[in-house]
């Protein structure tokens, strides 16, 4: 009984991890930026939701009307910084780590280190649930899950079907070629980074709705969210969603069958195993023509790799 229930609630929480991971995954896969500052944006989104919901006494979900545009701008602005300074995939990891630390400390300075929670009187979903037979679907989890699935699936459709989406994917495949076809990578990049920022705002709102806020929270997220990114396949939107649900379920399953202390251990061991067996991510079809595999991208190799690769992909 508690196993099935734990799987359900875990998978629903996985929607949150997927929501946190999707922006990271897309900016890693398509913009070649490993943006640790994304966790800072999520944190800002969460505190923003807390602050607005508390001071205006409004439904926390409504706060995204404000936080989404703000974090869109912040995400785009950060990308401008990365882009203008010509960072490689790898140096972006370091620079954004610095930015993350700055954001955490600023949050600390503004909201103090004390625990922050949205008042249950405002956050009326907090303890409500749907009951289906003997299974329980806690409302905050359900909202998280549904929003996560809808937004991520929507993002996938956008990337697959629209001109901007195709341009982005072309850009991810080969920057130079895309530029030759008149794709303005700078604007596209900022658009994508902005969209990532927007997902961070939503993930932050979902977090604030379900959990207590502390400024150090990003350090708790980094491990599990990167697990989702890597398992899902870098840049793979639907893969991220699937990996999020899987990791959430696995996390809870380990807690029920073994103990909660083992959850993180089980998840990390699973990642290492998965990477050993399927380095391209669990939910990626084996590399075929025209599909870049992430192991072939090496930060230091420069353009030489891609040209060798091109001969293969051209066939």
């Amino acid at each position: 009984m508690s196993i099935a229930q734990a799987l359900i609630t875990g998978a629903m929480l996985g929607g949150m991890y997927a929501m946190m991971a999707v922006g990271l995954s897309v900016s890693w896969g398509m913009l070649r930026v490993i943006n640790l500052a994304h966790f800072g944006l999520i944190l800002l989104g969460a505190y923003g939701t807390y602050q607005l919901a508390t001071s205006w006494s409004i439904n926390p979900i409504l706060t995204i009307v404000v936080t989404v545009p703000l974090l869109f701008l912040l995400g785009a602005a950060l990308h401008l910084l990365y882009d203008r300074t010509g960072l490689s995939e790898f140096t972006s990891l370091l620079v954004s780590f610095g930015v993350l630390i700055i954001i955490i400390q600023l949050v600390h300075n503004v909201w103090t280190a004390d625990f922050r929670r949205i008042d249950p009187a405002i956050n009326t979903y907090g303890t409500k649930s749907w009951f289906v037979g003997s299974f329980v679907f806690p409302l905050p989890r359900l909202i998280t899950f549904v929003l996560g699935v809808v937004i991520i699936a929507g993002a996938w459709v956008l990337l697959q079907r629209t001109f901007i989406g195709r341009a982005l994917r072309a850009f991810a495949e080969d920057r130079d070629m895309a530029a030759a076809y008149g794709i303005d990578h700078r604007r596209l990049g900022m658009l994508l980074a902005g969209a990532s920022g927007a997902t961070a705002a939503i993930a932050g709102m979902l977090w604030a709705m379900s959990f207590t806020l502390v400024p150090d929270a990003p350090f708790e997220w980094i491990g599990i969210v990167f697990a989702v990114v890597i398992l899902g396949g870098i840049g793979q939107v639907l893969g991220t969603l699937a990996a999020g649900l899987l990791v959430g379920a696995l996390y809870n399953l380990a807690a029920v069958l073994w103990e909660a202390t083992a959850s993180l251990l089980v998840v990390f061991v699973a990642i290492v195993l998965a990477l050993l067996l399927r380095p391209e991510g669990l939910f990626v079809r084996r590399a075929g023509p025209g599909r870049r595999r992430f192991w072939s991208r090496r930060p230091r190799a420069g353009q030489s790799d891609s040209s060798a690769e091109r001969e293969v992909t051209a066939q």
Partner: protein
Amino acid sequence: MRVRARAYGSAVAALALILAACGGDDDDSAAEPEPGTTEEGEATEEPGGEPSGDPIVIGSTLSLTGAFAPTGVIHQIVGEQFVERLNENGGLLGRPVEWRLLDDESDTAQITPLYERLINQDQVDLVLGPYATPNIIPAVAVAERAGYVLPHHTAIHAPLLSYECQFPGWSMDPQPDEYTSRLLFDLLGGLPEPPTTIALVTNESGSTQPMTQGFEGGGGMAGIAEEYGLEVVAQLPYPPGNQEWSSIASQLRDTDPDVVINNGLGVDPVGIIEAMEQLDYRPGMFFSLFPAPGPLLGLGEAAEGTLSVSLFEPNDALLEQYGDEVRSITEDFSQRAEAAGLPYTAFETQATASWNTWEILTRGVEGAGTLENQDVCDYLVENGVETTFNGQLTFDPEVNNFWDSNVGIKQIQDGEWVMVWPEDRAAAEIVPPEN
């Protein structure tokens, strides 16, 4: 000190400006005075008239940033309040007191160098301990090497603190698991319908795990429960910083104990109660060991009836008993806490422990009539100290100076923490579970 600090400020600012052309995220609010770091010397700059001469400098560190910071700030406010009050009332030995407070960033590795700095570099006259056991133990080692008296806040690992001049400002007896278990089980056993089954939900941090499993030599709650004929139907450990409670909640629902005992920290109980609520499950009673008091009250009706341990709660009935001085101390604290932007402003356990700590140090000095640390230490061991909140404390080096605990039990009643046990210090009676 301040001149030097400013010199560094400008030098570092200059360097930062040159290097960090990207650090443009200027946040207005960051420029506001920040509760953690404001004017450490404020108390001394407005001496309250009477004290004269060179200030006596008391040094300590607190976790103003990092994981322990939510509690660190309470101790900071109490310290500032205490020093100000002391200086208004003639200071210490007729001299003004200055508090030199450093931030240990919740990093145990920084404790040793910071206390070495206070003692050997800044040559402070007296020191106070930091907050939380892992930080207190290295501070005690430094104090011992230098022969300083070290009163400290909220350490529970009594057996590990063998230095004879360390004095706890809060005590759960030399054997905290035994003390807490008996306190709680005695209370529960006296209920009209005594519980028969318990579940132990334990944070595996060093401060809470041994409460369940036993400190060195102790049986732990799990063992002592058997003595009381209580059946442990579930043992659920979880890692510090845990956020995902649904699996624990569903296991609790499945085993349905009469009492859920959460030997946890901070907001752990909030997450557990909320997850149980989501499953539409409420155990008979819920006990939490070291919760952050505010967030539990924030849960409203769902947390009603929750039990925890406490040194003191500012309940009206108790304040009547204690008198005006205590009332003014607690009200002053609440105002300061509010000004600092704290969400929960009541003067409770942590603040009381902090107040005790300051009193042990200053009254020890007054009693010994000197700043000689060894004399102060001898005086305290010999005479004990009279505290405002916890009465006369006596220190016995045989049990590492851990005084007879008068920690009691509090309960959330009508959205407020109320002392309910032991009877002589209760502000109200315990409200038993409904069913």
